[in-house]
């Protein structure tokens, strides 16, 4: 499987209602932290919802930037959902069904490494 198979996939909740599209995949270091990447990276969860152009430009992470651009792009902040991997019930060619419903999903915090 490839990361691009998850990106853009359609996520629906247990009632079949659309939650949104996957626009990022959160990875975590599997196992204790060793030199650099050590045992590698594991998928911790999916970030679902409208892509945050502002985040892409780095407004969420330390970019103060000209206020004009923050005004225009900054506002497109994270309004997506953070879907932990263990909530996923099935993945079939770019359509992901999860347990529970959209509103009991936390909004994603910036990964802030």
């Amino acid at each position, binding site marked *: *499987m*490839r*990361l*691009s198979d*998850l*990106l*853009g996939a359609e996520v629906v909740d247990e009632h079949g209602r659309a939650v949104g599209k996957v*626009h*990022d*995949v*959160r*990875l*975590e*270091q*599997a196992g*204790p*932290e060793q030199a*650099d*990447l050590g045992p*590698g*990276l*594991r*998928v*911790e969860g999916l*970030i679902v919802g409208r892509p945050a152009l502002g*985040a*892409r430009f780095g407004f969420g992470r330390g970019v103060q930037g000209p206020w004009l651009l923050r005004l225009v792009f900054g506002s497109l902040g994270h309004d997506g959902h953070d879907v932990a*991997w263990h909530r*996923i*019930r*099935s*993945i079939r060619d*770019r359509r992901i069904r999860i347990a529970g419903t959209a509103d009991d999903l936390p909004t994603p915090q910036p*990964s*802030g*490494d």
Partner: protein
Amino acid sequence: MARRLDAALELLDRQLVDKDGRLAGKVDDLELTDPGDGLEQPRVTAILTGPDALAGRLHTRFGRWLQGVVLRLLARQGPARVPLEQVQAIGSSIELRVAAGRLDTGQGWARRLIGRLPGAGEGDAAQ
């Protein structure tokens, strides 16, 4: 606290730099283990780089067609794989432990072509 990364935001499209500081392509996609029926958490096994990996990200007919064309053009089966163990560090670019020559990043045909011109010098020893 285990380090956390947003794959698309902080890995995808980042510049790969080999151990000699030479540029070795971009992170065009990531290879994950298949969750299978058990739906275990997929692990990142390798970084994929090359125009065909890039084309694979366009989940449209055009993307698949482009991927086919690029593969035939570069006469290769699939994108170049950079196993995750060869990644030294992740920052504003991705430093690798290995020389770019060792990675089959599709430089071959271009290097043979350019190498014929006078004064081209020799490529990396390993290529």
